[in-house]
Protein backbone atom coordinates (compact mmCIF):
# COMPACT_ATOMS: atom_id res chain seq x y z
CA UNK A 1 0.00 0.00 0.00
CA UNK A 2 1.17 3.52 -0.66
CA UNK A 3 1.47 5.61 2.46
CA UNK A 4 -1.63 7.56 3.29
CA UNK A 5 -0.87 11.28 3.21
CA UNK A 6 -0.55 12.53 6.75
CA UNK A 7 -3.75 14.06 8.03
CA UNK A 8 -6.03 12.90 5.23
CA UNK A 9 -7.53 10.18 7.44
CA UNK A 10 -8.24 12.71 10.16
CA UNK A 11 -9.68 15.05 7.56
CA UNK A 12 -11.99 12.29 6.33
CA UNK A 13 -13.12 11.57 9.88
CA UNK A 14 -13.74 15.24 10.70
CA UNK A 15 -15.67 16.11 7.54
CA UNK A 16 -17.64 12.87 7.62
CA UNK A 17 -18.31 13.27 11.31
CA UNK A 18 -19.54 16.81 10.73
CA UNK A 19 -22.03 15.68 8.08
CA UNK A 20 -23.28 12.84 10.25
CA UNK A 21 -23.56 15.12 13.29
CA UNK A 22 -25.50 17.64 11.21
CA UNK A 23 -27.93 14.92 10.12
CA UNK A 24 -28.40 13.72 13.70
CA UNK A 25 -28.94 17.31 14.85
CA UNK A 26 -31.52 17.86 12.11
CA UNK A 27 -33.30 14.66 13.09
CA UNK A 28 -33.40 15.56 16.79
CA UNK A 29 -34.23 19.24 16.37
CA UNK A 30 -36.67 18.91 13.48
CA UNK A 31 -39.64 20.35 15.45
CA UNK A 32 -37.62 23.45 16.33
CA UNK A 33 -36.35 24.06 12.81
CA UNK A 34 -39.73 24.21 11.13
CA UNK A 35 -43.22 25.24 12.18
CA UNK A 36 -44.92 22.95 9.67
CA UNK A 37 -46.15 19.43 10.24
CA UNK A 38 -44.67 17.26 7.47
CA UNK A 39 -47.87 15.25 6.99
CA UNK A 40 -50.44 18.02 6.76
CA UNK A 41 -51.55 20.17 3.84
CA UNK A 42 -50.24 23.61 4.76
CA UNK A 43 -50.51 25.60 1.54
CA UNK A 44 -51.37 25.42 -2.15
CA UNK A 45 -50.01 22.47 -4.08
CA UNK A 46 -46.73 22.44 -6.05
CA UNK A 47 -45.50 25.86 -4.91
CA UNK A 48 -41.90 26.59 -5.98
CA UNK A 49 -39.32 27.33 -3.26
CA UNK A 50 -40.00 30.62 -1.45
CA UNK A 51 -39.18 32.26 1.88
CA UNK A 52 -42.12 30.57 3.62
CA UNK A 53 -41.41 27.19 2.03
CA UNK A 54 -37.66 27.08 1.27
CA UNK A 55 -38.03 23.77 -0.60
CA UNK A 56 -41.53 24.40 -2.00
CA UNK A 57 -44.61 22.25 -1.50
CA UNK A 58 -45.57 18.94 -3.09
CA UNK A 59 -48.65 17.73 -4.95
CA UNK A 60 -50.62 17.48 -1.70
CA UNK A 61 -49.52 20.87 -0.39
CA UNK A 62 -47.10 19.40 2.19
CA UNK A 63 -44.11 21.56 3.07
CA UNK A 64 -41.04 19.93 1.51
CA UNK A 65 -38.63 21.63 3.91
CA UNK A 66 -40.22 20.00 6.94
CA UNK A 67 -40.40 16.70 5.08
CA UNK A 68 -36.68 16.93 4.36
CA UNK A 69 -35.96 17.52 8.06
CA UNK A 70 -38.28 14.86 9.44
CA UNK A 71 -37.05 12.47 6.75
CA UNK A 72 -33.69 12.41 8.53
CA UNK A 73 -35.48 11.03 11.59
CA UNK A 74 -37.07 8.18 9.73
CA UNK A 75 -33.99 7.12 7.80
CA UNK A 76 -31.61 7.36 10.76
CA UNK A 77 -34.02 5.44 12.97
CA UNK A 78 -34.44 2.61 10.45
CA UNK A 79 -30.78 2.46 9.58
CA UNK A 80 -29.66 2.50 13.20
CA UNK A 81 -32.13 -0.25 14.10
CA UNK A 82 -31.26 -2.44 11.16
CA UNK A 83 -27.48 -2.12 11.29
CA UNK A 84 -27.43 -2.72 15.04
CA UNK A 85 -29.58 -5.78 14.54
CA UNK A 86 -27.36 -7.20 11.81
CA UNK A 87 -24.26 -6.36 13.83
CA UNK A 88 -25.47 -8.18 16.93
CA UNK A 89 -26.72 -11.18 14.99
CA UNK A 90 -23.73 -11.30 12.65
CA UNK A 91 -21.15 -10.96 15.41
CA UNK A 92 -22.85 -13.57 17.59
CA UNK A 93 -23.23 -16.10 14.80
CA UNK A 94 -19.73 -15.39 13.52
CA UNK A 95 -18.26 -15.97 16.99
CA UNK A 96 -20.09 -19.24 17.43
CA UNK A 97 -19.15 -20.38 13.95
CA UNK A 98 -15.50 -19.40 14.15
CA UNK A 99 -14.89 -20.46 17.73
CA UNK A 100 -16.64 -23.81 17.81
CA UNK A 101 -16.17 -24.83 14.18
CA UNK A 102 -17.55 -28.24 13.22
CA UNK A 103 -21.06 -28.82 11.92
CA UNK A 104 -22.36 -25.51 13.31
CA UNK A 105 -19.73 -23.70 11.30
CA UNK A 106 -20.49 -25.59 8.11
CA UNK A 107 -24.24 -25.01 8.29
CA UNK A 108 -23.95 -21.33 9.14
CA UNK A 109 -21.30 -20.67 6.52
CA UNK A 110 -23.24 -22.28 3.74
CA UNK A 111 -26.39 -20.32 4.60
CA UNK A 112 -24.51 -17.03 4.80
CA UNK A 113 -22.66 -17.71 1.56
CA UNK A 114 -25.91 -18.48 -0.20
CA UNK A 115 -27.41 -15.14 0.73
CA UNK A 116 -24.36 -13.55 -0.90
CA UNK A 117 -25.61 -14.82 -4.25
CA UNK A 118 -28.41 -12.28 -4.14
CA UNK A 119 -27.81 -8.65 -4.95
CA UNK A 120 -28.35 -6.63 -1.70
CA UNK A 121 -31.33 -4.77 -3.03
CA UNK A 122 -32.94 -7.86 -4.49
CA UNK A 123 -32.71 -9.75 -1.19
CA UNK A 124 -34.07 -6.72 0.68
CA UNK A 125 -36.93 -6.52 -1.82
CA UNK A 126 -37.73 -10.20 -1.34
CA UNK A 127 -37.75 -10.02 2.45
CA UNK A 128 -39.68 -6.82 2.54
CA UNK A 129 -42.39 -8.10 0.20
CA UNK A 130 -42.69 -11.02 2.59
CA UNK A 131 -42.98 -8.78 5.65
CA UNK A 132 -45.05 -5.98 4.16
CA UNK A 133 -44.44 -2.22 4.37
CA UNK A 134 -43.71 -0.22 7.53
CA UNK A 135 -40.76 1.19 9.44
CA UNK A 136 -40.00 -1.92 11.52
CA UNK A 137 -40.44 -4.33 8.63
CA UNK A 138 -38.10 -2.24 6.51
CA UNK A 139 -35.53 -2.32 9.31
CA UNK A 140 -35.86 -6.10 9.58
CA UNK A 141 -35.49 -6.55 5.81
CA UNK A 142 -32.33 -4.45 5.73
CA UNK A 143 -30.95 -6.22 8.81
CA UNK A 144 -31.26 -9.64 7.16
CA UNK A 145 -29.28 -8.44 4.14
CA UNK A 146 -26.24 -7.32 6.11
CA UNK A 147 -25.88 -10.12 8.68
CA UNK A 148 -23.45 -12.06 6.42
CA UNK A 149 -21.13 -9.03 6.16
CA UNK A 150 -20.46 -9.15 9.91
CA UNK A 151 -20.60 -12.90 10.06
CA UNK A 152 -17.84 -13.42 7.52
CA UNK A 153 -15.47 -10.98 9.09
CA UNK A 154 -16.01 -12.05 12.69
CA UNK A 155 -15.77 -15.73 11.79
CA UNK A 156 -12.42 -15.18 10.08
CA UNK A 157 -11.04 -13.26 13.04
CA UNK A 158 -12.37 -15.74 15.58
CA UNK A 159 -10.71 -18.60 13.70
CA UNK A 160 -7.29 -16.99 14.12
CA UNK A 161 -7.76 -15.74 17.65
CA UNK A 162 -8.97 -19.15 18.83
CA UNK A 163 -5.45 -20.49 18.26
CA UNK A 164 -3.66 -17.67 20.13
CA UNK A 165 -1.72 -18.65 23.23
CA UNK A 166 -3.69 -16.50 25.64
CA UNK A 167 -6.91 -18.13 24.54
CA UNK A 168 -5.37 -21.58 24.87
CA UNK A 169 -4.12 -20.60 28.33
CA UNK A 170 -7.58 -19.47 29.35
CA UNK A 171 -9.05 -22.71 28.09
CA UNK A 172 -6.48 -24.75 30.00
CA UNK A 173 -7.41 -22.95 33.17
CA UNK A 174 -10.93 -24.19 32.64
CA UNK A 175 -12.64 -21.02 31.42
CA UNK A 176 -16.02 -21.66 29.85
CA UNK A 177 -16.40 -21.23 26.08
CA UNK A 178 -18.91 -18.45 26.63
CA UNK A 179 -16.50 -16.52 28.89
CA UNK A 180 -13.63 -16.93 26.46
CA UNK A 181 -15.71 -15.62 23.60
CA UNK A 182 -16.98 -12.60 25.52
CA UNK A 183 -13.79 -11.69 27.39
CA UNK A 184 -10.97 -12.77 25.14
CA UNK A 185 -12.22 -12.88 21.57
CA UNK A 186 -14.88 -10.18 21.41
CA UNK A 187 -12.70 -7.23 22.54
CA UNK A 188 -10.16 -7.89 19.80
CA UNK A 189 -12.91 -7.57 17.22
CA UNK A 190 -14.01 -4.10 18.26
CA UNK A 191 -11.92 -1.97 15.82
CA UNK A 192 -12.87 -4.07 12.82
CA UNK A 193 -16.54 -4.18 13.76
CA UNK A 194 -16.67 -0.41 14.30
CA UNK A 195 -15.22 0.24 10.86
CA UNK A 196 -17.47 -2.22 9.14
CA UNK A 197 -20.45 -0.76 10.99
CA UNK A 198 -19.79 2.76 9.70
CA UNK A 199 -19.23 1.57 6.15
CA UNK A 200 -22.22 -0.71 6.38
CA UNK A 201 -24.46 2.20 7.40
CA UNK A 202 -23.76 3.73 3.98
CA UNK A 203 -25.11 0.68 2.20
CA UNK A 204 -28.02 0.45 4.60
CA UNK A 205 -29.04 4.06 3.90
CA UNK A 206 -29.03 3.41 0.17
CA UNK A 207 -30.98 0.17 0.60
CA UNK A 208 -33.53 1.89 2.82
CA UNK A 209 -33.97 4.63 0.24
CA UNK A 210 -34.24 2.00 -2.49
CA UNK A 211 -36.97 0.08 -0.66
CA UNK A 212 -39.02 3.22 -0.08
CA UNK A 213 -38.40 4.34 -3.65
CA UNK A 214 -39.81 1.03 -4.90
CA UNK A 215 -42.83 1.48 -2.65
CA UNK A 216 -41.88 -1.30 -0.23
CA UNK A 217 -40.34 0.29 2.86
CA UNK A 218 -41.80 3.42 4.35
CA UNK A 219 -45.01 4.44 2.66
CA UNK A 220 -46.49 7.96 2.45
CA UNK A 221 -47.52 10.09 4.27
CA UNK A 222 -44.59 9.23 6.61
CA UNK A 223 -41.82 11.61 5.50
CA UNK A 224 -39.11 9.59 3.81
CA UNK A 225 -36.58 10.75 1.23
CA UNK A 226 -36.82 7.64 -0.92
CA UNK A 227 -40.60 7.65 -1.20
CA UNK A 228 -40.65 11.44 -1.72
CA UNK A 229 -38.31 10.92 -4.64
CA UNK A 230 -40.70 8.37 -6.13
CA UNK A 231 -43.79 10.56 -5.76
CA UNK A 232 -41.92 13.61 -7.04
CA UNK A 233 -40.65 11.82 -10.12
CA UNK A 234 -44.17 11.70 -11.57
CA UNK A 235 -44.13 15.51 -11.84
CA UNK A 236 -40.68 15.63 -13.40
CA UNK A 237 -41.72 16.11 -17.06
CA UNK A 238 -43.66 19.23 -15.98
CA UNK A 239 -40.46 20.68 -14.54
CA UNK A 240 -41.17 20.61 -10.77
CA UNK A 241 -37.50 20.07 -9.97
CA UNK A 242 -37.62 20.83 -6.25
CA UNK A 243 -39.75 17.75 -5.49
CA UNK A 244 -36.93 15.41 -6.49
CA UNK A 245 -33.75 17.43 -6.02
CA UNK A 246 -33.99 17.94 -2.27
CA UNK A 247 -34.80 14.41 -1.00
CA UNK A 248 -32.08 12.87 -3.17
CA UNK A 249 -29.52 15.47 -2.13
CA UNK A 250 -30.28 14.70 1.53
CA UNK A 251 -29.71 10.97 0.92
CA UNK A 252 -26.45 11.73 -0.81
CA UNK A 253 -25.09 14.06 1.89
CA UNK A 254 -25.86 11.48 4.56
CA UNK A 255 -24.21 8.62 2.65
CA UNK A 256 -21.14 10.73 1.86
CA UNK A 257 -20.91 11.61 5.56
CA UNK A 258 -20.88 7.98 6.67
CA UNK A 259 -18.53 6.92 3.83
CA UNK A 260 -15.97 9.56 4.75
CA UNK A 261 -16.25 8.63 8.41
CA UNK A 262 -15.89 4.93 7.62
CA UNK A 263 -12.93 5.39 5.27
CA UNK A 264 -11.15 7.60 7.74
CA UNK A 265 -11.81 5.27 10.67
CA UNK A 266 -10.59 2.29 8.69
CA UNK A 267 -7.32 4.12 7.96
CA UNK A 268 -6.88 5.06 11.61
CA UNK A 269 -8.06 1.91 13.37
CA UNK A 270 -6.99 -0.85 11.01
CA UNK A 271 -3.98 0.40 9.11
CA UNK A 272 -3.05 -3.10 8.03
CA UNK A 273 -6.43 -4.22 6.80
CA UNK A 274 -6.99 -3.06 3.24
CA UNK A 275 -10.55 -2.58 2.08
CA UNK A 276 -12.31 -5.51 0.42
Amino acid at each position, binding site marked *: *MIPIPRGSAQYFVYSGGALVAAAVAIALLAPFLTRFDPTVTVDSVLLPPSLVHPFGTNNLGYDMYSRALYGARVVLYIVFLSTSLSMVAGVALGLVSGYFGGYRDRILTIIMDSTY*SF*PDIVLAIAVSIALGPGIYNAAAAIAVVYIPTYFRMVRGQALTIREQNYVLAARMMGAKAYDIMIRYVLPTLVPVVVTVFTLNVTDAILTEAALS*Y*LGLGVVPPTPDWGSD*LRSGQVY*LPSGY*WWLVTIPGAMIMLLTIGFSLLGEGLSDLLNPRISRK
Partner: protein
Amino acid sequence: MLLIVLTIVFLVVRVLPGDPVLAVLGPKATPEERERMREQLGLDKPLHVQYFAYLAGIFSGDMGRSMIFGLRPVVYEIWDRFPATLELSIIASIIAAILGLTVGSLGVLSKKPQADVGSRLYGIISYSFFIPWLGIMLQIVLSVWFRLFPISGRIDPMMAPTRITGLYLIDSLLTTNLQALANASWHLFLPSLTLGIVMSGIYAKLGRTSFSEVIVQDHVLAARSRGLKEGTIFRDHILRNALVPLLTMMGLQFALLLGGTVLTETAFSWPGMGYLIYERILYRDYNTIQGILVFFALLVVFVNIIIDIIYAYVDPRIRF
Protein backbone atom coordinates in the same frame (compact mmCIF):
# COMPACT_ATOMS: atom_id res chain seq x y z
CA MET B 1 -25.32 -24.28 -1.99
CA LEU B 2 -27.47 -23.77 -5.03
CA LEU B 3 -30.14 -25.84 -3.32
CA ILE B 4 -30.07 -23.50 -0.32
CA VAL B 5 -30.38 -20.45 -2.56
CA LEU B 6 -33.39 -22.01 -4.26
CA THR B 7 -34.92 -22.97 -0.92
CA ILE B 8 -34.49 -19.45 0.44
CA VAL B 9 -36.30 -18.03 -2.58
CA PHE B 10 -39.13 -20.52 -2.21
CA LEU B 11 -39.57 -19.86 1.50
CA VAL B 12 -39.45 -16.09 1.15
CA VAL B 13 -41.92 -16.00 -1.68
CA ARG B 14 -44.35 -18.45 -0.06
CA VAL B 15 -44.67 -16.57 3.21
CA LEU B 16 -45.82 -13.48 1.33
CA PRO B 17 -48.96 -12.10 2.89
CA GLY B 18 -52.02 -11.61 0.76
CA ASP B 19 -53.82 -14.05 -1.47
CA PRO B 20 -52.36 -13.90 -5.00
CA VAL B 21 -55.50 -15.34 -6.50
CA LEU B 22 -57.59 -12.66 -4.86
CA ALA B 23 -55.16 -9.98 -6.06
CA VAL B 24 -55.34 -11.19 -9.64
CA LEU B 25 -59.03 -11.97 -10.00
CA GLY B 26 -60.31 -9.13 -7.83
CA PRO B 27 -62.82 -9.32 -5.01
CA LYS B 28 -65.73 -9.98 -7.38
CA ALA B 29 -64.51 -13.46 -8.38
CA THR B 30 -66.71 -16.35 -7.26
CA PRO B 31 -65.23 -19.00 -4.97
CA GLU B 32 -65.36 -21.49 -7.87
CA GLU B 33 -63.30 -19.21 -10.11
CA ARG B 34 -60.74 -18.78 -7.37
CA GLU B 35 -60.60 -22.51 -6.76
CA ARG B 36 -60.05 -23.17 -10.46
CA MET B 37 -57.16 -20.70 -10.61
CA ARG B 38 -55.62 -22.12 -7.45
CA GLU B 39 -55.70 -25.52 -9.08
CA GLN B 40 -54.17 -24.22 -12.32
CA LEU B 41 -51.30 -22.68 -10.40
CA GLY B 42 -50.80 -25.69 -8.17
CA LEU B 43 -51.49 -23.64 -5.05
CA ASP B 44 -54.04 -26.14 -3.74
CA LYS B 45 -51.36 -28.75 -3.04
CA PRO B 46 -49.53 -28.99 0.28
CA LEU B 47 -46.34 -26.91 0.67
CA HIS B 48 -43.85 -29.77 0.40
CA VAL B 49 -45.43 -30.97 -2.84
CA GLN B 50 -45.21 -27.42 -4.19
CA TYR B 51 -41.58 -27.28 -3.09
CA PHE B 52 -40.53 -30.41 -4.97
CA ALA B 53 -42.53 -29.42 -8.03
CA TYR B 54 -40.70 -26.08 -7.92
CA LEU B 55 -37.25 -27.70 -7.68
CA ALA B 56 -38.02 -30.21 -10.42
CA GLY B 57 -39.31 -27.36 -12.57
CA ILE B 58 -36.17 -25.27 -12.21
CA PHE B 59 -33.86 -28.12 -13.14
CA SER B 60 -35.90 -28.74 -16.28
CA GLY B 61 -36.01 -25.07 -17.17
CA ASP B 62 -39.62 -24.53 -16.14
CA MET B 63 -40.28 -21.79 -13.61
CA GLY B 64 -44.03 -22.04 -13.59
CA ARG B 65 -46.48 -19.59 -15.06
CA SER B 66 -47.07 -15.93 -14.46
CA MET B 67 -50.16 -15.40 -12.36
CA ILE B 68 -51.36 -12.55 -14.52
CA PHE B 69 -51.70 -11.78 -18.21
CA GLY B 70 -52.99 -15.15 -19.36
CA LEU B 71 -50.68 -17.30 -17.25
CA ARG B 72 -47.65 -16.86 -19.51
CA PRO B 73 -44.70 -19.10 -18.60
CA VAL B 74 -42.26 -17.18 -16.42
CA VAL B 75 -39.35 -18.35 -18.56
CA TYR B 76 -40.82 -16.42 -21.51
CA GLU B 77 -41.22 -13.30 -19.41
CA ILE B 78 -37.56 -13.47 -18.42
CA TRP B 79 -36.54 -14.31 -21.98
CA ASP B 80 -38.28 -11.11 -23.14
CA ARG B 81 -36.74 -8.86 -20.56
CA PHE B 82 -33.28 -10.27 -19.94
CA PRO B 83 -31.58 -8.78 -23.03
CA ALA B 84 -32.55 -5.26 -21.93
CA THR B 85 -30.92 -5.81 -18.54
CA LEU B 86 -27.89 -7.43 -20.14
CA GLU B 87 -27.41 -4.58 -22.60
CA LEU B 88 -27.69 -1.99 -19.84
CA SER B 89 -25.27 -3.83 -17.54
CA ILE B 90 -22.65 -4.40 -20.22
CA ILE B 91 -22.55 -0.79 -21.37
CA ALA B 92 -22.69 0.48 -17.78
CA SER B 93 -19.80 -1.81 -16.79
CA ILE B 94 -17.69 -0.57 -19.67
CA ILE B 95 -18.33 3.04 -18.67
CA ALA B 96 -17.65 2.20 -15.01
CA ALA B 97 -14.42 0.33 -15.72
CA ILE B 98 -12.99 3.03 -17.97
CA LEU B 99 -13.98 5.90 -15.67
CA GLY B 100 -13.12 4.17 -12.42
CA LEU B 101 -9.85 2.55 -13.40
CA THR B 102 -8.63 5.79 -14.99
CA VAL B 103 -9.35 7.75 -11.82
CA GLY B 104 -8.02 5.02 -9.55
CA SER B 105 -4.77 4.50 -11.46
CA LEU B 106 -4.14 8.22 -11.97
CA GLY B 107 -4.38 8.76 -8.22
CA VAL B 108 -1.72 6.13 -7.61
CA LEU B 109 0.58 6.72 -10.57
CA SER B 110 0.88 10.48 -10.24
CA LYS B 111 2.44 9.86 -6.80
CA LYS B 112 1.07 13.15 -5.54
CA PRO B 113 -0.84 12.79 -2.26
CA GLN B 114 -3.42 15.32 -3.45
CA ALA B 115 -4.18 13.22 -6.51
CA ASP B 116 -4.58 10.14 -4.34
CA VAL B 117 -6.96 11.88 -1.96
CA GLY B 118 -8.81 13.20 -5.00
CA SER B 119 -9.28 9.74 -6.43
CA ARG B 120 -10.45 8.42 -3.06
CA LEU B 121 -12.96 11.25 -2.79
CA TYR B 122 -14.17 10.45 -6.29
CA GLY B 123 -14.71 6.86 -5.20
CA ILE B 124 -16.58 7.86 -2.06
CA ILE B 125 -18.79 10.45 -3.73
CA SER B 126 -19.75 8.51 -6.83
CA TYR B 127 -20.56 5.44 -4.74
CA SER B 128 -22.75 7.58 -2.48
CA PHE B 129 -25.10 8.56 -5.29
CA PHE B 130 -28.57 7.17 -4.84
CA ILE B 131 -29.01 5.69 -8.33
CA PRO B 132 -32.57 6.90 -9.02
CA TRP B 133 -31.64 10.37 -7.88
CA LEU B 134 -28.63 10.61 -10.15
CA GLY B 135 -30.81 9.34 -12.98
CA ILE B 136 -33.53 11.87 -12.22
CA MET B 137 -31.02 14.74 -12.02
CA LEU B 138 -29.63 13.78 -15.43
CA GLN B 139 -33.21 13.57 -16.70
CA ILE B 140 -34.05 17.06 -15.41
CA VAL B 141 -31.03 18.69 -16.98
CA LEU B 142 -30.57 16.73 -20.18
CA SER B 143 -34.13 15.62 -20.94
CA VAL B 144 -36.50 18.19 -19.43
CA TRP B 145 -34.48 21.41 -19.77
CA PHE B 146 -32.34 20.74 -22.83
CA ARG B 147 -34.47 18.02 -24.45
CA LEU B 148 -31.39 16.12 -25.56
CA PHE B 149 -32.30 12.62 -24.42
CA PRO B 150 -35.51 10.66 -23.88
CA ILE B 151 -36.73 10.40 -20.29
CA SER B 152 -37.65 6.71 -20.39
CA GLY B 153 -37.95 3.59 -22.47
CA ARG B 154 -35.54 1.55 -24.53
CA ILE B 155 -36.44 2.51 -28.12
CA ASP B 156 -39.23 4.45 -29.85
CA PRO B 157 -42.39 2.45 -30.64
CA MET B 158 -42.24 0.41 -33.88
CA MET B 159 -38.48 0.95 -34.16
CA ALA B 160 -37.27 -2.25 -32.51
CA PRO B 161 -34.95 -4.29 -34.75
CA THR B 162 -35.71 -7.92 -35.60
CA ARG B 163 -34.78 -10.06 -32.62
CA ILE B 164 -31.63 -12.09 -33.09
CA THR B 165 -29.85 -11.72 -29.77
CA GLY B 166 -32.37 -9.36 -28.18
CA LEU B 167 -29.63 -6.80 -27.64
CA TYR B 168 -30.85 -3.85 -29.70
CA LEU B 169 -27.37 -2.50 -30.41
CA ILE B 170 -26.17 -5.81 -31.85
CA ASP B 171 -29.42 -6.70 -33.60
CA SER B 172 -29.61 -3.37 -35.37
CA LEU B 173 -26.00 -3.74 -36.49
CA LEU B 174 -26.61 -7.26 -37.78
CA THR B 175 -29.68 -6.15 -39.71
CA THR B 176 -27.86 -2.92 -40.72
CA ASN B 177 -30.79 -0.95 -39.37
CA LEU B 178 -28.87 2.23 -38.59
CA GLN B 179 -31.96 4.18 -37.59
CA ALA B 180 -32.72 1.65 -34.88
CA LEU B 181 -29.08 1.65 -33.78
CA ALA B 182 -29.08 5.41 -33.37
CA ASN B 183 -32.40 5.41 -31.57
CA ALA B 184 -31.44 2.58 -29.23
CA SER B 185 -28.09 4.18 -28.33
CA TRP B 186 -29.88 7.46 -27.74
CA HIS B 187 -32.23 5.77 -25.25
CA LEU B 188 -29.43 3.76 -23.68
CA PHE B 189 -27.16 6.72 -23.00
CA LEU B 190 -28.66 8.15 -19.78
CA PRO B 191 -29.46 4.88 -17.98
CA SER B 192 -26.04 3.37 -18.68
CA LEU B 193 -24.28 6.60 -17.75
CA THR B 194 -26.19 6.70 -14.44
CA LEU B 195 -25.34 3.14 -13.50
CA GLY B 196 -21.82 3.53 -14.91
CA ILE B 197 -21.01 6.53 -12.74
CA VAL B 198 -22.19 4.84 -9.56
CA MET B 199 -20.32 1.62 -10.33
CA SER B 200 -17.18 3.54 -11.31
CA GLY B 201 -16.71 4.51 -7.67
CA ILE B 202 -16.12 0.87 -6.82
CA TYR B 203 -13.72 0.42 -9.71
CA ALA B 204 -11.82 3.52 -8.61
CA LYS B 205 -11.43 2.07 -5.10
CA LEU B 206 -10.44 -1.38 -6.35
CA GLY B 207 -8.13 0.07 -8.98
CA ARG B 208 -6.41 2.18 -6.37
CA THR B 209 -5.72 -0.79 -4.11
CA SER B 210 -4.61 -3.02 -6.94
CA PHE B 211 -2.33 -0.48 -8.66
CA SER B 212 -0.75 0.66 -5.41
CA GLU B 213 0.16 -2.93 -4.57
CA VAL B 214 1.79 -3.52 -7.95
CA ILE B 215 3.85 -0.34 -8.34
CA VAL B 216 5.96 -1.10 -5.28
CA GLN B 217 6.86 -4.60 -6.49
CA ASP B 218 10.49 -5.44 -7.22
CA HIS B 219 9.91 -6.35 -10.85
CA VAL B 220 8.64 -2.84 -11.54
CA LEU B 221 11.71 -1.37 -9.89
CA ALA B 222 13.91 -3.79 -11.88
CA ALA B 223 12.23 -2.78 -15.13
CA ARG B 224 12.76 0.86 -14.33
CA SER B 225 16.41 0.34 -13.45
CA ARG B 226 16.91 -1.45 -16.76
CA GLY B 227 15.96 1.87 -18.32
CA LEU B 228 12.64 0.81 -19.90
CA LYS B 229 10.31 3.58 -21.02
CA GLU B 230 7.58 4.50 -18.51
CA GLY B 231 4.93 3.59 -21.09
CA THR B 232 6.35 0.10 -21.53
CA ILE B 233 6.65 -0.38 -17.79
CA PHE B 234 3.03 0.65 -17.34
CA ARG B 235 1.73 -1.61 -20.10
CA ASP B 236 3.79 -4.75 -19.52
CA HIS B 237 4.65 -4.64 -15.85
CA ILE B 238 1.98 -2.67 -14.02
CA LEU B 239 -1.28 -2.93 -15.94
CA ARG B 240 -1.17 -6.69 -16.52
CA ASN B 241 -0.46 -7.50 -12.91
CA ALA B 242 -2.92 -4.98 -11.56
CA LEU B 243 -5.76 -6.35 -13.66
CA VAL B 244 -5.52 -9.92 -12.37
CA PRO B 245 -6.89 -9.31 -8.87
CA LEU B 246 -9.40 -6.88 -10.38
CA LEU B 247 -10.96 -9.73 -12.32
CA THR B 248 -12.11 -11.63 -9.24
CA MET B 249 -13.28 -8.44 -7.64
CA MET B 250 -15.37 -7.74 -10.73
CA GLY B 251 -17.05 -11.08 -10.10
CA LEU B 252 -17.90 -10.00 -6.57
CA GLN B 253 -19.24 -6.71 -7.86
CA PHE B 254 -21.52 -8.45 -10.31
CA ALA B 255 -24.26 -8.88 -7.71
CA LEU B 256 -23.99 -5.19 -6.95
CA LEU B 257 -24.33 -4.39 -10.63
CA LEU B 258 -27.51 -6.46 -10.87
CA GLY B 259 -28.93 -4.70 -7.83
CA GLY B 260 -28.09 -1.41 -9.50
CA THR B 261 -29.99 -2.36 -12.63
CA VAL B 262 -33.17 -2.81 -10.57
CA LEU B 263 -33.03 0.85 -9.48
CA THR B 264 -31.77 2.21 -12.80
CA GLU B 265 -34.46 0.38 -14.72
CA THR B 266 -37.18 1.60 -12.39
CA ALA B 267 -36.00 5.21 -12.64
CA PHE B 268 -35.91 5.10 -16.44
CA SER B 269 -38.84 2.68 -17.03
CA TRP B 270 -36.24 0.53 -18.80
CA PRO B 271 -38.05 -2.69 -19.76
CA GLY B 272 -35.59 -5.13 -18.17
CA MET B 273 -35.92 -7.66 -15.37
CA GLY B 274 -35.48 -5.12 -12.59
CA TYR B 275 -38.42 -3.10 -13.85
CA LEU B 276 -40.34 -6.35 -14.32
CA ILE B 277 -39.84 -7.23 -10.65
CA TYR B 278 -41.08 -3.75 -9.69
CA GLU B 279 -44.19 -4.11 -11.88
CA ARG B 280 -45.00 -7.59 -10.59
CA ILE B 281 -44.67 -6.64 -6.95
CA LEU B 282 -47.75 -4.49 -7.51
CA TYR B 283 -49.70 -7.51 -8.82
CA ARG B 284 -48.38 -10.02 -6.27
CA ASP B 285 -47.30 -12.19 -9.16
CA TYR B 286 -45.48 -14.73 -6.93
CA ASN B 287 -44.29 -17.02 -9.68
CA THR B 288 -42.69 -14.31 -11.75
CA ILE B 289 -41.03 -12.69 -8.72
CA GLN B 290 -39.78 -16.11 -7.65
CA GLY B 291 -38.51 -16.82 -11.15
CA ILE B 292 -36.60 -13.55 -11.35
CA LEU B 293 -35.05 -14.04 -7.90
CA VAL B 294 -33.91 -17.53 -8.88
CA PHE B 295 -32.63 -16.24 -12.18
CA PHE B 296 -30.67 -13.42 -10.52
CA ALA B 297 -29.07 -15.81 -8.03
CA LEU B 298 -28.20 -18.37 -10.71
CA LEU B 299 -26.69 -15.60 -12.80
CA VAL B 300 -24.45 -14.46 -9.93
CA VAL B 301 -23.26 -18.02 -9.25
CA PHE B 302 -22.70 -18.64 -12.98
CA VAL B 303 -20.76 -15.41 -13.51
CA ASN B 304 -18.50 -16.20 -10.56
CA ILE B 305 -17.69 -19.60 -12.01
CA ILE B 306 -16.83 -17.98 -15.36
CA ILE B 307 -14.61 -15.45 -13.61
CA ASP B 308 -12.79 -18.24 -11.78
CA ILE B 309 -12.06 -19.91 -15.11
CA ILE B 310 -10.83 -16.69 -16.71
CA TYR B 311 -8.74 -16.06 -13.61
CA ALA B 312 -6.91 -19.35 -13.99
CA TYR B 313 -6.33 -18.53 -17.65
CA VAL B 314 -4.96 -15.04 -17.00
CA ASP B 315 -2.79 -16.02 -14.05
CA PRO B 316 -0.93 -19.23 -14.95
CA ARG B 317 0.08 -19.78 -11.31
CA ILE B 318 -3.48 -20.69 -10.43
CA ARG B 319 -4.64 -24.23 -11.14
CA PHE B 320 -7.77 -25.84 -9.86
